[in-house]
């Protein structure tokens, strides 16, 4: 079933009696496979409002992300959270949509400074599991009118409602960027160096270390004179950790970090962990991973692990959590994709799903 209007979607859900598998671009097949009829929402397309002088964009959920990024680039603006493209990582074709990105709350390296997808999201419209159309938030940056369901919808993977339209706060695309590279650091030293950089007043907008190549990257963005000044100050400040070279804007390098390119077409399962940065090297070592990519200064670790391993069992308790992003269907059937929740949290999450989707129609079981 393919819908092209919110109204049509609402009618469809109202009369539905069996599970629906919600599909935007179909490029992020994470979680337990949903057995159900496909509900294709990629037909809900188009930009509803774009006001560059107000840094505001409202767009329908099925709009291809690439279309939105091109539109913004034309006006010298962007989605600051640097959404990742997971096609290479997950071996998918298709066209990522804005709604899918929001439903998965996908953010990239700049999240460390500019916030996540959910932080840039200022409004949402969705159809809940009863077929009711709901709006929340709006198109303004500051809004505490009623409860913030906007955040709740981001990262809910379609399990609370089908997102039909989203509004973002945008940021200007900076004049230039500079990337510093050091090729000699261990994960321990790299995380310490990244913490030092992120603790500096130079507004680092990317800090990543790839264990496989030993490369550590640090990014600064802004007006040219400021970037030149900050790059120099950072090089001096970080000299005690190793030798840093200035490799220009580093666009390709950051795209590779964003999309976890190092793991494309490499064997094994892929896990994504959210941890305290200083714990990251130890956790990666305990994980017995084939390879590790530390983003967000170490706050996020991408791990490539031998297929089928239960990483959570291997690690034991950690301060933070692990999500299984890529694995064979058999593994995903056996190991929960999303981090198990503490009992009282699980009770709240289940009760919310029961309220928003009482007939259990929307991607049932996807999040566990």
């Amino acid at each position, binding site marked *: 079933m393919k819908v092209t209007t919110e109204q049509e979607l609402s009618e469809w859900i109202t009369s539905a009696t069996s599970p629906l598998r919600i599909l935007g671009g179909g490029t992020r097949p994470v979680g337990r496979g949903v057995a159900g009829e496909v509900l294709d929402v990629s037909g809900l397309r188009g930009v509803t409002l774009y006001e560059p002088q*107000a840094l505001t964009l409202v767009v329908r959920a099925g709009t291809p992300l690439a279309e939105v990024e091109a539109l913004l680039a034309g006006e010298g603006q962007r989605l600051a959270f640097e959404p990742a493209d997971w096609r290479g990582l997950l071996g998918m074709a298709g066209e990522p949509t804005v709604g899918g990105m929001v439903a998965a709350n996908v953010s990239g390296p700049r999240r460390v400074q500019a916030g996540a997808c959910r932080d840039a999201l200022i409004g949402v419209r969705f159809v809940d599991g009863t077929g009711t159309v709901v709006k929340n938030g709006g198109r*303004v940056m*500051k809004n*505490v*009118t009623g409860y913030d369901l906007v955040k709740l919808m981001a990262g809910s993977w379609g399990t609370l409602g089908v997102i039909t339209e989203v509004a973002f706060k945008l940021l200007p*695309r900076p004049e230039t960027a500079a990337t510093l590279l050091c090729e000699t650091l261990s994960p321990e030293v790299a995380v310490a160096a990244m913490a030092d950089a992120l*603790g500096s*007043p130079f507004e680092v907008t990317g800090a990543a270390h790839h264990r496989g190549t030993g490369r550590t990257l640090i990014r600064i963005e802004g007006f040219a004179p400021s970037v030149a000044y900050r790059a120099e100050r950072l090089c001096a400040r970080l000299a005690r950790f190793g030798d840093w070279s200035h490799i220009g804007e580093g666009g390709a390098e950051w795209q590779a970090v964003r999309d976890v390119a190092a793991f494309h077409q490499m064997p094994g399962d892929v896990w994504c962990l959210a941890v305290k940065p200083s714990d990251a090297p130890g956790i990666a070592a305990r994980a017995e991973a084939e390879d590790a990519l530390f983003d*967000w200064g170490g706050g996020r670790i991408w791990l490539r692990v031998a297929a089928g391993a239960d990483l959570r069992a291997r690690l034991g308790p950690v301060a933070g959590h692990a999500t299984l992003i890529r694995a064979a269907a058999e593994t995903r059937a056996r190991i929960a994709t999303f981090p198990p929740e503490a009992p009282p949290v699980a009770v709240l999450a289940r009760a919310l799903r029961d309220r928003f989707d009482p007939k259990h129609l929307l991607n049932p079981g996807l999040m566990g």
Partner: protein
Amino acid sequence: MQLPRPNAEVIARKAAIVSRLRAVLPSAAVIDDPAETRAYECDGLSAYRCPPLAVLLPGTTAEVATALKICREERVPVVPRGSGTSLSGGALPTSDAVILGLGRMNRVLETDLANRFIRVEAGRTNLSVTGAVEGEGFFYAPDPSSQLACAIGGNIAMNSGGAHCLKYGVTTNNLLGVTLVTMAGEVVEIGGPWMEAGGLDLLGVICGSEGQLGVVTEAVLRVLPKPEGARPVLIGFNSNEVAGACVADIIRAGVLPVAIEFMDRPCIRACEEFAKAGYPDCEALLIIEVEGSPAEIDDQLARIGEIARRHDPVELRESRSEAESARIWLGRKSAFGAMGRINDYMCLDGTIPVSALPHVLKRIGEMSRGYGLDVANVFHAGDGNMHPLILFNANKPGDLEKCEALGADILRLCVEVGGCLSGEHGVGIEKRDLMVAQFTEEDMEAQMRVKDVFDPDWLLNPAKVFPLEASAARRGA
């Protein structure tokens, strides 16, 4: 303002309820002497007052849990309270409710600057969070003007912002985790010192829920390295339209100041008389602050100056020193004080799309003349969060009502142009009955479902946020 009929049965059982609470809480933590509970009869919206049944001042999360469990069993409504600076009546008690004050829970529990977070108890004041890390060159970014007094728990409940949120975001963008006690007395940990809370974004919906989903007892907050320096420029214009156009051009040029404050003529005049900051006599004033090293600041101010000059400013004064910066900010920072000296005033808090600024200011001017009440405007122009101050005379019969009617009209206008009723003060009781201007029944129903999940008996912070008719069935009213 209508409040729900208090539960007479609860009031009748007051002595028994209080003694049950005394049996499990330290004696200093339970107050029921009316002379002492009077201090809690209102918050910053002092036009509305109601003494509570009793006041509880627990010292630990466990005590909060015990107290809530008993209150739930006794069906006593609970109003969480931080420092009572809410401007929307968010912490206003009802006569059958206990106030649960977090003021005694104000410790720093953990500071970890390598991982850029701090864990504090929810009663700690906003400014003292920064105080705990500034020695090491860090700060906590959300900076409401009330930051000396207001508590982190209140900030989380109201998703508070501040002058610098154009660059750093509001509370929700700087909150990593909370310890929340539900009305059932269950202690729930959500998120933590890592960057993604995981699972459904419960943290996102708790922040800004006005104390209606649970009592926050601890919070993990992101702290940031302090910029090398900051300096403002003051720019005066002969019309609001031109000032608005200048703001739009600055944003379009890719400059991202840390603050863009806007004052209109009535506000400029009052501030000038009060603070003698040396503001020019003009229609509209912008104070724009940028951050960085001295050279970076010069560069950004030069870019802003160049844009502003295209709009024929009547004055453009770049700060060159700390003393000059302080003078530029002096008038703005004393705006509320200045107003308070010449009049009683009501401070509104709607947000509008910045592109609607000139239109909204013009309409506010017309409405103000229609009602015969002066309105001064001071607001965060970069993000469209307006704070119209309506001046009235509390001693003049009918003036408060007139002021409230004008306020409601202005807020409805904000919604009409695509904005919202509250940018940072919350709905509380003040804007509760206006919610229907912004939301359909279905929109509110979806929000109330969240309340059903966290607080099925609707005992936490009653009579706030949702119109009483909308929540009647749920409250068993």
